[in-house]
C-alpha cells in the first residue's frame, strides 16, 4: 500500500470511530437526558407526560406518610409556590426529612385523581446538613420568584429552607 493510501485508511478508520461515537452520543442524548422541572412547571403542565424526569424542592412539613407495607412512601414536594404529590416504593435516603431539600426522579402517573401524582423510582437527598441539592435549591428560588411576581400565596414559615446555601 502506498503511504498516501495508508494515511487515508487510518484517517478513515479514525473518522468512522468518531462517527460511531457521535451516533452513540446523539442517540443516547435523545433517550437518556433527564430534564428537571419545578413543581410550578409541573402544575402548569410543562412536564412531559411519557418520559422520566426529575422534580426538586422541599418535602412539605407533615406530608410524609407511610403505607402499611412499611416501604411505600408518599410525600409532597413544594417549591413554596406550588406542590406536587410524590409516591415512592423503596428505602428513603438517610437525609430525607420533612422541611428539607429533596430531588425525585420518575414519571407522572396518567389520569391521577386530585392533581398530578409523580411516581418516583429514585429519591435523592443532600449529602450533609449544610448543602441543598442544587436542583432543589433552584426550584425553591424559582418558586420564590414566582410567588413575588404572581398573586400572593402565603407560605408557612417552616417551609423556609434552613441552612440552604444554594
Amino acid at each position, binding site marked *: 500500500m502506498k503511504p498516501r493510501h*495508508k494515511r487515508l485508511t487510518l484517517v478513515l478508520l479514525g473518522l468512522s470511530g468518531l462517527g460511531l461515537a457521535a451516533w452513540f452520543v446523539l442517540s443516547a442524548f435523545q433517550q437518556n437526558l433527564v430534564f428537571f422541572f419545578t413543581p410550578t412547571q409541573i402544575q402548569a403542565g410543562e412536564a412531559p407526560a411519557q418520559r422520566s424526569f426529575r422534580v426538586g424542592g422541599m418535602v412539605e412539613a407533615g406530608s410524609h406518610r407511610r403505607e402499611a407495607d412499611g416501604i411505600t412512601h408518599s410525600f409532597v414536594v413544594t417549591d413554596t409556590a406550588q406542590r406536587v404529590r410524590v409516591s415512592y416504593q423503596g428505602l428513603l435516603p438517610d437525609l430525607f426529612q420533612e422541611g428539607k431539600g429533596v430531588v425525585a426522579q420518575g414519571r407522572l402517573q396518567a389520569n391521577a385523581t386530585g392533581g398530578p401524582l409523580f411516581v418516583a423510582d429514585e429519591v435523592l437527598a443532600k449529602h450533609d446538613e449544610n448543602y441543598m441539592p442544587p436542583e432543589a435549591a433552584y426550584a425553591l428560588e424559582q418558586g420564590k420568584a414566582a410567588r413575588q411576581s404572581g398573586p400572593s400565596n402565603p407560605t408557612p414559615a417552616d417551609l423556609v429552607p434552613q441552612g440552604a446555601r444554594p
Partner: protein
Amino acid sequence: MIPELGQTALIVALGLSLLLGSLPLWGAYRQQAHLMSLARPLAAGQFAFAALAFGILIHAFVVMDFSVAYVADNANSLLPVQFRVAAAWGGHEGSLLLWQLMLSGWTLAVALFSRQLPPATVARVLAVLGLISVGILSFTLFTSNPFARLIPSAPDGQDLNPLLQDPGMIFHPPLLYMGYVGFSVAFAFAIAALLEGKLDAAWAKWTRPWTLAAWVFLTLGILLGSFWAYYELGWGGWWFWDAVENASFMPWLVGTALIHSLSVSEKRGSFKNWTVLLAILAFSLSLLGTFLVRSGVLTSVHAFASDPQRGLYILVFLLIVIGGSLALYAWRASQVGLGGRFAAFSRESLLLLNNVFLVVSMGTVLLGTLYPLALDAFGLGKISVGPPYFDAVFAPLMLPLLLLISVGPYVVWKQGSVARAWHELRGVALVSVLLAGGIALSQRTSVGVTTGLLLAFWVLLGSVQHAVQRLRAGSEQRSFAQRWRAVPLAFWGMVVAHIGVGVFVLGVTLVKGLDQVRDASLQVGQSLTLGDYRFDFKTLDKHKGANYLAGRATFEVFHHGRLLATLHPEKRFYVVQRMPMTEAAIDRGLTRDLYVSLGDTAPSGAWGVRVQVKPFMGWVWGGTLLMALGGVLAATDGRYRQRARAAAPEHTPTSVTPTAADLNVAPTTL
C-alpha cells in the same frame, strides 16, 4: 505561633518555586550550566518547605488547635486521632496543600532519579514542574490559606462529615492525588521536549516509567474510592457516573492511551506528536478534574465550600496551562515530527485504534459531564445526564477496544498479517464462543451478559495464550529457567494488566447483569428470602461509638438452610453533625457478596431493610488490582534504569525486518 510558621513555610516554598520555574529554564535556553544546576537543590528546598507546611497543618489537627479556622471547620475533639490526621485533607484548603505536597514530592523524585538525563532536559523538566507549583502555591496562599486564624478561637470544632470518617479517607485522597499530580511529570517531559524541539526514543524511555507510576496511583485511587463508596454509601452502588468520578476517570482513560502510545514512541519512534498531545491532555484533564471538584460547580461529598473567586482562579490557571501548552504544541510540534512509518495492519495501527477509542470514550464522558454544566451556566435549563447515558455510550465504545486487546500482541510492528493473527487466535475465539454460548444456553443470560462474558473470555484466554507461547519459544535450545529470565518484566506487566481487564469485565458483566435486590419492612424475628438466600432479622441492639450512637442489627443468612454468615448492619447517628448514616454489612465471597443495609424505622417498630446478592463483585476489585500490578511490573522493568544512560538513536532498531522469532512470538508491549 506554629500555624504562622506554616504560612511562612508556604511563602518560602512559593519563592523557591518561582526561582525553580525561571532560572533553570533561562539556563537551559542560554546553555549556562551553573543556572541549570540550580534546579535540583531548588526542587529539594521546595519539597522541604511544602512538607514542613503540611506537617504543621497535621500537627494543628492532632493537637486540636481550634484557633485555626480550617481545623475548627473540619475536626472535633470527639473525632479519633487517625481521622483528625485525615481531616487535614477533608476540606478545600488542606486538600490543596496535599496536592502541592504531592507535586513537590514528584518534583523531588524527578530531581533524584534523573542522573542519566542530560542537564538541559532535567533543568527544563524541573522548571516546568516549578511553574505548576507557582500556580498551586499562589492559589493556596491568596485564596485558600489553611492557616488562617479564627478570632476568637472556637471552643470546639465542627466535625468531619460522617461519610468521610472511614479508613478510606486516609488512603483514597492521597493515592488519587498521587495519580492526578503524577501526570504533571509526563506533562513536564512533553513541554521540555517541545521547548527543546527534540523527541527521541530515549525521551519515551524516560517518560514511560513516570507515566506508568502515575497511572498505577490513579488506578488504585479510583479503585479505593469506588470500593469505599460501595460499603460506605450503604446502598451497594460502586460506580455512579457522578461528575466527580468522571473527573478522575477521564485522566485515567487518557493516561491509559498515553502509556500505550509511549510504547510505540519508545520502540518504533512513531506517534511522537500524538504522545506529546496525550501527555498535555492527561495533565489538563487532571487540572480540569481539580477545577470541577473544588470550584463548587458540582455539589457532592467532594465539593467543599463554593467560592467564586477560587473557581475563577482555577479557571484562569487552567486556561494558562492548557492554552499555553497547546500554543507551544502548535508552534513546535512540527519539529518533533511524526516518526516512523507503518502499514495499515500492524501493531502501530492497532495501538492507534486503541488510542482513538480511549480518547473518544474520554470525549463522551467529558461531554456527558460538561454538557449539563454548560446548559446551566448559559441559563438554558437544568438537565442531568445520568448512568443510562454513560452506559449506552461507553459500553459500545469499549467493545472494539476489548476485541483489540487480544489481537494487538499477536501482530508485529510495522507490517502485520491478518492471516497470521487469525491463525494464532482462532482457537481462543472458538473456546470463548463455546464457553459464553454454553453459559448463555444453560443459564439463559441476556444478550448484554453473554456479550460481556464472550469478551471477558476472549481477553483472558488471548492474554494467557500469549504468555504461554512466549515462555515456550525456543524451548529446544534453552531451559525453562533461561526462558523465564529472558522475558522482560514489561511483558509480564502487559499480560497481567490485560488479564486484569478480563477479570474486571467478567465481574462488571455478572454483577450488573445478575444482581438481585429486595426492599422490605421487617420486624425483629421476621425473615426475607432473596433467590436461594434467606435473611433472618434476629436482634436489634443499641451501640455507642466514639462520636455516634447506633442501632445495630443482627442478620443470619442461610443458603438452602445452611448458615452462611452473620451480618451486623448499623444505623448511626453522628451527634456533632446531627446526621444519620447507614452502615451496611457485607459478607464477601469469591463468587458473590451478600449486602444488607438498614433504612428507617416505621412507627410500628419495623425497619426498612434492603438485601442484595451481588455476584462476582470481588472480581471488579481484583481485576482493577491486577491492572495496577501490571503497571507496577512494567514500570520496574530493568531496561528503564540501565540502557537509558546511553543516548538512544532516533529509531530504536527493534525488528525492522520481522524475523522468524518475531512472527512466532510478537515482541512485548504495554
